[in-house]
């Protein structure tokens, strides 16, 4: 296949317009733009928070004002004016108690997005905690889960109903002074999800949250806290979209996971925030701090992410492997197309004995996209017999994009084994010709090959998410037979 034709095929395959660009007409109850202690008091008051939380927010805010935005990542963007952002925007009409009370406009939005909550509730057995802008708008299945002792609710509800759990675990994995964006989130977060799975309980269904940035100029600062008590298991799905806007929207979330003895948490994300248009105008700035602590023995935390959206992605879902025999996993597909920039990866910090971690990262760069894998594997002196295996593959589509691999490997224990492998390739002309000789169009050939490249990661996603993820890469479902 000559370079020209292949270029066209790749262009066609990679230049899909953003499907989820529509805004919902809902009256928003917003704070004025800008950030100061009054705004924080306003947020806290709006949410009727206990005093410990207000104090914490103020402490975080004061610390944040002394911090500088980090510059080490391979992402470039104009300076963010933090005084031009609206830090609180809640859909009006009070807090809904059930789906019936949810604003029909919002429900329609979810339907357009392919998140028909009612349908899911009945057909798929998924409990959805949907966050539009900053406030959780509805939690399904809450009652059924409550019967098993599982607490699954919006973060605001958790603050009201389980303040002791919030106080105990919030900030225990991602301290407020961890980094610039985490500190900002800690000061101004408005809502998010909370989940507590008690001792010995296996959560019988996938828990799901849907995040969506809606109002103009709003930042979304959600906070997720997920605790799996001894012997508990839970699988959690997170989906994200944002409407098309010309200006950049800021998203700075914090996710904290805690796994106690023998507990297991699987956390899957499909991130499809608006990436900006073909010329790099608009798009979401996604600065997210996600971290899990394997506190207990034999605990396991597994991160799977498919990152196709956002103009800028700055995200390193990490595991602190404290408990002996604990396991951390990170499976990632990151796409940087047009003018997207992704700097993503993980940190695996091995503290306990016999801890194991696996990192599989697949980066796809197209157009002018820049994709960086940045990952740290640290074996602490006490981590006897720790093991890590890392594999990072990059696929380049076109000659104007970039693929970068920046691993940091630190080994301070001599009974450990750490291996890192990386490769960079493009789709070969031979592969495309082979597919075309069997009757496939060149676009289908490209999609097929890209999908094959990502397979190891897609396989880790729950089925319905895998379907969504593959759709996002504009390919038809692979392996429906096999």
């Amino acid at each position: 296949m000559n370079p020209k034709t292949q270029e066209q095929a790749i262009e066609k395959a990679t230049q899909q317009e953003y499907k989820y660009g529509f805004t919902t007409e809902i009256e928003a109850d917003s704070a004025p733009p800008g950030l100061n202690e009054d705004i924080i008091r306003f947020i806290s008051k709006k949410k009727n928070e206990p005093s410990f939380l207000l104090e914490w927010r103020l402490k975080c805010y004061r610390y944040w004002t002394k911090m500088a935005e980090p510059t080490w990542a391979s992402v470039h963007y104009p300076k963010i004016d933090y005084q031009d952002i609206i830090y609180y925007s809640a859909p009006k009409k009070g807090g809904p108690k059930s789906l019936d009370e949810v604003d029909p406009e919002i429900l329609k939005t979810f339907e357009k997005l392919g998140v028909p909550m009612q349908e899911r509730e009945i057909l798929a057995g998924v409990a959805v905690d949907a966050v539009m802008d900053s406030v959780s708008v509805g939690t399904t299945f809450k009652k059924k889960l409550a019967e098993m002792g599982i607490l699954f609710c919006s973060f605001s509800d958790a603050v009201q109903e389980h303040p002791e759990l919030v106080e105990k675990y919030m900030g225990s994995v991602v301290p407020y002074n961890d980094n610039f964006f985490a500190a900002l989130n800690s000061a101004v977060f408005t809502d998010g999800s909370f989940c507590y799975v008690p001792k010995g309980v296996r959560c019988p269904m996938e828990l799901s949250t849907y995040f969506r940035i809606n109002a103009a100029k709003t930042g979304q600062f959600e906070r997720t806290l997920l605790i799996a008590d001894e012997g508990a298991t839970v699988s959690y799905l997170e989906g994200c979209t944002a409407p098309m806007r010309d200006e950049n929207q800021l998203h700075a979330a914090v996710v904290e996971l805690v796994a106690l003895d023998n507990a297991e948490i699987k956390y899957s994300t499909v991130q499809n925030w608006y990436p900006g248009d073909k010329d790099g105008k608009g798009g979401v700035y996604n600065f997210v701090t996600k971290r899990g602590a394997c506190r207990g023995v034999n605990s396991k935390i597994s991160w799977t992410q498919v990152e196709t959206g956002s103009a800028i992605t700055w995200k390193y879902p990490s595991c602190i492997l404290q408990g002996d025999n604990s396991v951390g996993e990170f499976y990632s597909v990151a796409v940087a197309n047009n003018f997207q920039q992704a700097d993503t990866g993980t940190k695996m910090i091995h503290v306990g004995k016999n801890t194991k971690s696996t990192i599989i990262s697949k980066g796809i760069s197209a157009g002018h996209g820049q994709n960086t894998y940045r990952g740290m594997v640290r074996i602490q002196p006490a981590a006897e017999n720790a093991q890590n295996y890392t594999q990072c593959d990059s696929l380049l589509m076109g000659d104007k994009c970039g693929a970068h691999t920046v691993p940091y490997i630190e080994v301070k224990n001599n009974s450990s084994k750490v291996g890192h492998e990386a490769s960079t390739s493009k789709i070969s002309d031979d592969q495309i010709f082979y597919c075309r000789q069997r009757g496939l169009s060149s676009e289908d050939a490209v999609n097929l090959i890209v999908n094959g490249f990502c397979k190891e990661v897609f396989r880790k996603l729950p089925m319905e998410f895998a379907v969504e993820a593959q759709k996002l890469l504009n390919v038809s479902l692979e392996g429906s037979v096999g």
Partner: protein
Amino acid sequence: MNSTEVKNNYLSVFSDWEKTALTKDPFWIRETREKALSYFEKSGFPSSKDEAWKYTDLDAFYKIPFALTGEGQTKAAVSAELKFLGFDTSKANLMVFVNGHLSKSLSSFEDSHGIKVRSLIESLSNGPLKRYFIEILPFENRPFVSLNYAYFTDGLFLHVPEGKQLEKPVHLVYLSDNSGKPTQSHLRNLILMEEGSRATVVEHYWGNNLNPYFTNVVTKVSLDKDASLDHTKIQQESELATHIGVLAARQKENSRLAARVFSFGGGLGRSEVETVLAEKRAEVALDGLTLSTGKQHLDIRTFVDHLSPACKSAQAFKAVADKSGTAVFDGQVLVRENAQKTDASQSNKNLELSKDAKIYSKPQLTIYADDVKCSHGSATGQLDEEAIFYFQSRGISREEARRTLVYAFAEEMVGKIQNDYVKGPVGLMVQRWMEEEIGKKS
């Protein structure tokens, strides 16, 4: 002292030092020295917040008041020692530098067939070498390089004209005197290889001094079309030494550079190798072996800049860390937009032999072209217990088994040396290291 005090010291002694030491410098060199120093004044020393120095802490270096000295004397029986190390110096152009100054009495070298093998400082005074001197490695962003620009005293000047082949390798030996005071030397080598020329150079840093000393070296290499240089650096400084060195090359079409770093000595050792593959089909092979024990901190940093299409780079670095030794590998491959058909590989393998040893590995790929073949790998582990047991079951002691296995791991890098003048001695050094270090109680 802390880093600011050391910096201020370098700034304040310059004018006195310049007056006494550098009377023969042509104007442009003095100018360059001053520029570099004023740059250093702004930059100061790197801190561990600097990405390039993330894993190498300089606190110990700041604590020692290294003095700038004039020509030094060494009491070492240089030729006997070199013989003991396995070198047959009759087969080389031998240049011995003491405290950064060429010792003519200990050296034996000559020009031949139009090939110049000379002292750099004398050549700079005579020849129009300004272009080469400043190109290739500017001092911006490089505190130790800017210090070197300001304070360098001498080094090798090698010029191989078109089509010529240097028959005897150049063996550079760098020593520091044993005067009892902490001393420092700033060395500068310049190697110019014209079209189709070939040469072999050995940079050999060596000492068993009882006082601390500091060596700061910059080697610049220019390779024209089809030229080929085989370069080996042996860093065998005393364990009280701080060694910081950079080899920077620029390669034209179809030129070949083989650069190896054997890092055995020094308390704090940092060796950087970088090359710009500036024209098509240039090739570079970078190899290295680090043996770090005691409290040594040995750091290797590489940077290969694929600027042009169809170039090839291969990097293979291995390290053994024992006792409280630390080994760092920080390697980068940059493939620029134009550099289609690039073939780049990078491999870093590490063996960690003791509980307190530390390994840091950071192999990086930065790729802006799509039709490329790039890969890297890093593996860190320990000796295979099963293999040790297998040896034991055949009657071989555990220590002997460990020594054999570590040697087998390290020997691969010795095997990559093409030139017999260097290969034998380096093999011997590795062997002796195994005998002395593996099996000794920690």
